[in-house]
């Protein structure tokens, strides 16, 4: 009886161990496969088309004759929308995190945290849709524009999407500051605000930077909402009040009509590679800051 049990246990142990191993390996395999596929398709563009013209070309005319695959307008479109959203989301996020983490009474803190996290649960397409019918007309009216489908509309929308990441991570970072710092400062007669500003924020700074980086990562990869409200004109943007077209929106909009195996098709994958590299770099930077925090 006892030995049966022991053998059974050993089998269970073996199966579980192998299953976990397989799951771990598979996730790596999938990532590698995806990346290889992306590279293979994307790099095919450069058999016919110069990489320099792709990276530095200022015209995105994928279906004219001859076609032009310059991604500068798309890259700038993404950068402008992303920077705009970060400029809006960071001050709001820092303020919200300080309020939630340091100032608000406990009961309110819980409500606020739940609300911020709820924001993360709204599907981006829904946010995009709401933005389209509320924000876009508002932007048009406030700035007296011909259309409200502009970079700034996208930035505002994306700021909302980045907020949950930014606020909750920053709040964690503030919470991770040893309370001895707070008491040390308070005991010297620092007011609450002086304590937050001179002690808590500097001590939490690397975690807060990581929060911003992850917020950027979230924003730059966002597609549907951006496509719905930024106007999608592939020109080089000179202000936030213009329609722009991001890299993600380009891929989403054109993938359906590009002929498989054509240069147009490959160029969309090449955009994918650029996007991948940017996002990867951002996450790496965030990881660097998070690491620095856990070591400090």
């Amino acid at each position, binding site marked *: 009886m006892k030995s049966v049990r022991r053998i059974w246990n050993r089998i269970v142990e073996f199966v579980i161990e192998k299953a976990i191993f397989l799951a771990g390996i598979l996730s790596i395999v999938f990532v590698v496969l995806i990346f290889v596929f992306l590279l293979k398709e994307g790099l095919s563009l450069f058999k016919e088309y110069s990489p320099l013209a792709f990276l530095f070309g200022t015209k995105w005319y994928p279906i004219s004759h001859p076609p032009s695959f310059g991604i500068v307008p798309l890259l700038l479109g993404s950068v402008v929308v992303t920077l705009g959203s970060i400029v809006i989301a960071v001050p709001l996020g820092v303020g919200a995190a300080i309020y939630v983490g340091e100032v608000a009474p406990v009961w309110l803190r819980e409500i606020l945290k739940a609300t911020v996290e709820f924001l993360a649960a709204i599907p981006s397409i829904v946010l995009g849709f709401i933005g389209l019918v509320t924000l876009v007309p508002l932007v048009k009216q406030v700035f007296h524009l011909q259309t409200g489908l502009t970079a700034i509309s996208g930035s505002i929308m994306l700021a909302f999407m980045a907020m949950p990441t930014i606020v909750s991570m920053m709040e964690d970072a503030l919470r991770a500051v040893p309370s001895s*710092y707070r*008491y*040390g*400062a308070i*005991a010297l*007669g620092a007011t609450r605000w*002086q304590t937050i500003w*001179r002690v808590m924020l*500097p001590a939490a700074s690397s975690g807060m930077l990581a929060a911003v980086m992850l917020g950027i990562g979230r924003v730059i990869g966002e597609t549907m909402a951006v496509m719905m409200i930024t106007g999608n004109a592939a020109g080089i943007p000179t202000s936030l009040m213009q329609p722009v077209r991001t890299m993600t929106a380009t891929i989403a909009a054109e993938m359906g009509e590009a002929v498989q195996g054509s240069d147009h098709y490959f160029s969309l994958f090449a955009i994918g590679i650029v996007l991948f590299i940017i996002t990867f770099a951002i996450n790496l930077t965030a990881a660097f800051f998070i690491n620095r925090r856990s070591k400090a």
Partner: protein
Amino acid sequence: MVDETSKDKLVVKDLNVRYGTKEVLRQISFAVRSNEILGIIGPANSGKTSLLRTLNRLNDNDAAFSMSGTVTLDGQDIYKKMAPHTLRRKMGIIFALPTPLPLSIYENIAYGPKLHGTRNKTALNEIIERTLRASFLWDEVKDRLDMPAMKLSGGQQQRLCIARTLAVEPEIILYDEPCSGLDPISTAKVEEAMTLLTKQFTQILVTNNTKQAARVSDRTAFFLTGELVEIDETQRIFTVPCDQRTEDYVSGRFG
């Protein structure tokens, strides 16, 4: 004859403190005289830390905390007549575990004066040297003031915290078991500093080490489960206490 009460710096009257429904201090009344060191002794859980936190208003943000009674500093009610940061400027506190800020040694001490408006470099340098000397740390760190304070040893960190408190020029200094993590030599240095500081400050020393109270304090108060059993000249507390429980505790026959 000089009026006894005129020398009283800090007066606690009928103080009751609760956390939620738990009573941690009951009907505490005593006075602290100017420039004395008042030792506070008592076993764990007797409410010593709670008392200091109440005196320094560190409980203000604790929703469970409630109190009744009054605490007055130079005749002014600290809960009704003073902003918490004004109070804490007049009444510094040193915690059991050193609490250096994540700054250099120099900046740790300069932090308080800068906060309260001293920006002049020469003035700051003077404050730093004076306070580090007073806390017997100057000789050990004078050549490396730019070093992160976190890199100091525990005993040095504690003395840095004392220097930092002195730099704010408080009137009263509270210590909560300041030597519990220190070796005998560091402890001796802290005690020596305290003794010299009586010229300028009124000090309250909470300690688990009755011998320490016997060594440095002028008067000693014995707390037991939230009650002030007895307060008297240190000498009397350790030789002829009025209460049997005090005698048991100081002679080590307690629990």
